[in-house]
């Protein structure tokens, strides 16, 4: 596969380390009263759909950026990729 790195263009997927569901960006509030239950979901409940999925990939043999890649897990079609820090900042600002 080729991962379309937002800064570097298409790169061999072998340069990357795969993590999985991009939901991991959304770490629960540790101060919240139901923090333990929220963390339990965060750690153990990951989606793994057959279809379009947002995933985290780390450019280990590259610029060391974490990416959020939108990929159809059935066809392997990649619909987009962003720097994870941009996604995290955007969501943090909301």
């Amino acid at each position, binding site marked *: *596969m*080729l991962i379309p790195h937002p800064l570097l263009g*298409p790169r*061999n997927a072998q340069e990357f*380390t795969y*993590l999985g569901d991009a939901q*991991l*960006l959304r*770490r*629960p509030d*540790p*101060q919240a009263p139901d*923090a*333990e239950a929220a*963390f*339990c979901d*965060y*750690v*153990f409940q990951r989606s793994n759909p057959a279809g379009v999925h947002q995933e*985290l990939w*780390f450019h*280990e043999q590259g610029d*060391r*950026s*974490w990416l959020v890649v939108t990929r159809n897990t059935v066809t*392997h*079609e*990649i619909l987009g990729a962003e*720097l*994870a*820090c941009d996604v*995290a*900042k955007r969501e*943090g600002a909301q």
Partner: protein
Amino acid sequence: MTRLSGGLIDRNRPLKFTFNGTAYSGFAGDTLASALLANGVQLMGRSFKYHRPRGVFSAGSEEPNALVELREGARQEPNTRATVAELYDGLSARSQNHVGPLHRDLLAVNDLFSPFFAAGFYYKTFMWPRAFWEKLYEPLIRNAAGLGRLSMLPDPDSYDKGFLHCDLLVIGAGPAGLAAALTAGRAGARVILGDEDFHLGGRLLMESDLLDGAPAEAWVATVKAELESLPNVRIMTRTTVFGVYDHGIFGAVERVSDHLPEPGSTVRQTLWRITAKRSVLAAGATERHIPFADNDRPGIMLAGAMRAYANRWAASPVRQGNDAIAIFTNGDDGHRTARDLLAKGANLLGVIDTRKGAAAQGDYKVFDGAMVTGTKGRLGLRAIEITRDGQSSWHDAGALGVAGGWNPNVHLSSHHRGRPVWDEARLAFVPGQNGPAGMIPAGAAAGQGGTAQALASGAAGAIAALAEIGITAHPIALPTAKDASADQEAFWHVPGKRRAWVDFQNDVTVKDIKLAHQENMRPVEHLKRWTTLGMATDQGKTANVSALAVMAELTGKSLPETGTTIFRPPYTGVSLGVLGGGDTGKGFRPERLTPTHHWAKARGAEFVEVGPWMRAQYFPQAGERTWRETVDREVLAVRAGVGLCDVTTLGKIDVQGADAGEFLNRIYANMMGTLKVGMVRYGLMLREDGHLYDDGTCARLAEDHYVVTTTTANAGAVYRNMEFAHQCLWPDLDVQLISTTDAWAQIAVAGPKSRELLSRIVDGFDLSNEAFPFMACANLTVCGGLRARLFRISFSGELAYEIAVPARYGAALMERLMTRGQDLGATPYGTEALGVLRIEKGHAAGAELNGQTTAQMLGLGRMVSQKKDSIGAIMSRREGLAQEKRRLVGLKSLAPQTMAVSGAHLFEQGATRSMETDQGWVTSACYSPHLQGYIALAYLENGDARMGETLVAANPLEGTEVPVEVVSAHFIDPEGGRLRD
């Protein structure tokens, strides 16, 4: 000799070769198959199941029959297709799959028992009695099965891999491929043109058609010259594009030196990974045959192959020059072969055409509305039976060409589950619309098999493909060419009672397909597995569609309703050697060496692999008979004097920035923000699920600069997780992470005399306990101005330091410490002694931090700060983990000569051995030279409260049980006085 005139062979370069020990000669440009045919050799092998005599059937990589063992000794390669093996001087080949000489194969007896070997025979016969399978049936079947033999010697050749990138990959260099490549090349696009053949031209070389009024090879030569002159075009002959992968990635094998007697100093083959923005599939078509009774005799081959041998290789299919040749066809393509053979002076019996009213297209006899219904000739064709209007007659014939129509080579277009579609007008499956993204089929592969059609569709395909990526290509002047008539009727097999082969390689006949139908194995995937149709080296290239047609007829369904099998990579067989790529043996996996590696090697150290690292395991001295003697000496030297160990492999991550302290508070379970500059703190890292995953020290070099040390094994993972936390969780913190593991050579200087030794090399630095206490760190210089970092930390439990210098000085520093510390007993020690020292001290390592353990279990529960959030903090407080009662303890073996091994489980004396009574497990164990006995670390239920208790460490795998006494994990200096003085 049955060599004809003309052809693309170099008659000035004769080549000698042997087949089954008999010497023959051919010419440069021959394949093994063409050279054998030109020598009148029809019999080339035996079939897989019935051991029927077989001859060459095709002229390309689809060959099912003519498989040989090529070369001698270690280079012997089984199942090589004679049709694609280029002849070289001295080539030697042997036929396969027979016992005794080829013409008198003892296993031909199988053919007599063929009624018993029908499809499904194995599945049904060898089921019972069950016990017979392993001892009797399987060895017997394995002995009889298989085609060629392996040499069983190591492969002497080397292989290579590489990566190529282009705008347009053109697969196949026939008329469509050449037109596509030239169109794209002239447009300035970066083009790769790949073909499995050693000449460009594809089918153009096999036909007598004229291009621009001249033989086609003249046009091919012109195009080749122009393509070679274009710097943006790469021509790759002898290269098979064997697979299509995601996002425009293709696998290809280039046979770099298979056409040479030996590769010499170059590689045998290269595996290429080609990334192409677009591709044109111009892979041509494969002819199919028409099954009829006894259609597998040597001398019977595809009519298009017969034409190819005559035109390109000037080889006749008969054993003797004047033997008659017949053609059996269901369309005009058979007549094309007849015309070409006549032009070469062949003795043509005539054309048997299934179509009523078919007329001759030249000076030969036509049997219209007729079929071939039988053949004779044990080791080669002698006669054929022609049946017309119910009347049969026998005719002498030395060769028979069969023309059943052409199947587009759709294989690569279906590698992404793209389904070919049935084209009723062309009576063929053509690539569907759902093929791999960016691939445009052209030429015969797209059903555009006429020469003019192929040229035009190739050029148009290139223009369309390049337009999609913003490159404008213009139509080029194509040579004038004619499309030969493709008229044919749907005639799939000759009905009859005798065996009619569909798949030659697997000995699958029409009867077998009928049997599969009868047994309800009707879906194509079932048909394939029940009959083995389409399996093995040729993957049914000449058989699959014909078999489908037979099944369609039996089920009364249409051919597209019957379906088609999915083609998967590889298109043709790929050797495992080339898939392995460049390096074998030690070079297969790169090694990491420490800065003192060569120094340690010179001292005779033994090394151990730790991930990619090679670490010194121990340093044997003369007179030491076992590794234990060496390790005991090293351990005692540390405890008594001073020892030196290279610990460079520990991960070192520079953490800088205004928020470095806050960031590390969130990374470590314990506080790091409060660490004073110039001090070091031991830290625990948790996974978000609350379990421990790494530990190490963290030094604060400046207000905004920390150095995090990780374990050797987790250096990569810790860095990756810290980047995750930085980029994905807390992107607003001002933190910069840089890995500096390799930059610093780090040496542990451990033992009561370590301070004394270091004081001899530091440049005026005060090492006193007051000035540089336990857990202090500093930048300083040593040995007359060399920059260094010094940390007062200890893994061994002794007074100890770790000193880091620029990596290139690591070996020199080690040598200097050895020299200056000679009188102090300075001793290098390896990972074994390091392990013993830390077990004696009760320090955790990988075995204790195995991903299932918690800070509490280590007795460090209070280190997990309750005042702050950090990764894993919340989950570490959940009920199951908070109430964890197992604790790290020490164990002393009560049996003097026996060790409680790691992994042993602990039980109370006399208790039954079960999950319910299990008290914990041993994590690490060693002989302690200090305590002069076997000791271990273990996790034990309520461990803290069980000091002095006697338990049993059971190892049921080896049936051993060792009585042990529970003690503190700190066998050495439990108060820690040695560290702090």
